[in-house]
């Protein structure tokens, strides 16, 4: 009898997770959203606790660095003021040229800032949880950025929390181009905080240090978002393609706030 009970218990431990794995994806998604919604208030409180502790320790460290930092910032300020003047001129010129060529401006239909309230262990998967969800206007497939740098896209939404797939995750695919030479490729996550630009032509004009930007060919991602810089280029002896390892522009280990943007996603869904 004990033996039978033991066999049943073993079967349950193995069968339950496996049967959940085989459930239809909409059921799995609903279950995950239920978990997310249940725990989102706790995660927000944890984030406040974490940032409070962070601020305290950073404050102490920053005090020691303040003098040098101040001197460096003064110099940088002067340099940036000059640069700003030039950029304003360039912006005006750019606007004039855009009008002249009848270019469509990159339109962002919706944007909302969000804080990162959770992240996974980073061993196999690279996702973060943000404190904005359906009730804040966030929708699945929206693009997530930090400044002008690409972070990832929303893959699951709860009521007040959403899951963001980072560009370094294995499941992530983004159309990308080399800014200097306009060579096209597909950016794939490679974990270990790296990405790979695949499907470059064999004789692609790409070199170490080149900036990679989004091509705008992937739905939901605007064109021109910085992705990262080329670390090294691999050209195989045979084959049609070459590929390059990319160091992302975003420091995914330290990122705390992001911006969720809708680049015409809702419009395309309604069409």
């Amino acid at each position, binding site marked *: 009898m004990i033996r039978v009970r033991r066999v049943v*218990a*073993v079967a*349950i*431990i*193995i069968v*339950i*997770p*496996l*049967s*959940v*794995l*085989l*459930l239809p994806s909409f059921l*799995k998604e609903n*279950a*995950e959203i239920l*978990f*997310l919604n249940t*725990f989102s208030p*706790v*995660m927000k409180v*944890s*984030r406040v*606790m*974490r940032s409070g502790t962070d601020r305290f320790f950073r404050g102490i460290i920053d005090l020691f660095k303040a003098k040098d930092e101040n001197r460096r910032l003064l110099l940088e300020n002067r340099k940036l003021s000059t640069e700003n003047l030039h950029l304003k001129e360039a912006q005006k010129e750019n606007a004039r040229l855009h009008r002249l060529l009848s270019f469509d401006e990159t339109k962002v239909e919706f944007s909302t800032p969000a804080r990162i*309230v*959770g*992240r*996974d*262990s*980073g*061993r*196999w*998967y*690279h*996702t973060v*949880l943000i404190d904005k969800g359906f009730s804040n206007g966030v929708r699945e497939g929206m693009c997530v950025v930090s400044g002008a740098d690409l972070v990832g896209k929303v*893959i699951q939404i709860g009521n007040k929390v959403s*899951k963001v*797939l980072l560009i370094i*995750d*294995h*499941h992530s695919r983004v159309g990308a181009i080399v800014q200097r030479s306009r060579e096209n490729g597909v950016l*794939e996550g*490679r*974990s*270990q*905080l790296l990405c*790979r630009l695949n499907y470059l032509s064999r004789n692609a004009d790409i070199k170490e240090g080149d900036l990679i930007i989004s091509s705008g060919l992937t739905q939901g991602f605007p064109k021109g978002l910085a992705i990262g810089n080329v670390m090294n280029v691999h050209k195989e002896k045979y084959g049609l393609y070459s590929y390059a390892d990319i160091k992302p522009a975003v420091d995914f*280990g330290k990122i705390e706030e992001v911006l969720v943007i809708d680049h015409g996603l809702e419009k395309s869904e309604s069409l």
Partner: protein
Amino acid sequence: MITLKITILMAFIAVLQSAILNFYPLFGKHTIDFICITVVFLSLKYGWRRGGYAGILGGFFEDSFSSAVLGCNAFSYGIVALFTGIVSTVLYREHLSTRMMMVFAGSLVVYGINMVFQLLLTSGVTFSTSEVFQSAILNTAISPFVFYVIEKIRID
């Protein structure tokens, strides 16, 4: 009552790991797998059935907080509980070194199963064996502190 306490403990550890501890990786890249350590501890102390329950529950939490397919981690932690239960019948399980050894083996089992799932479900996956071993060693090194804390909670 113990089941309820285990449920609360696993939910607490999953949230703590996702919302706080994963933000501070050791040596910039290794996060400690507190769920695995807890599952091993519970399996050794309260038997593999309770450990298995804790593993499945903790795994479901971890799956829903990450991009993993729901059930993937639940399965791997369930197997860790079973494995720990089976091995512990032939080992002296009260000694700290045995517990630490089980955490090391359990971590490798979790990584191994995750690797298989990744290879089956995702294309172009790369993994480094040395990193897997480093993470397992770190889990093992941290485990006495986690054991101490859980022991203090007094689940029974």
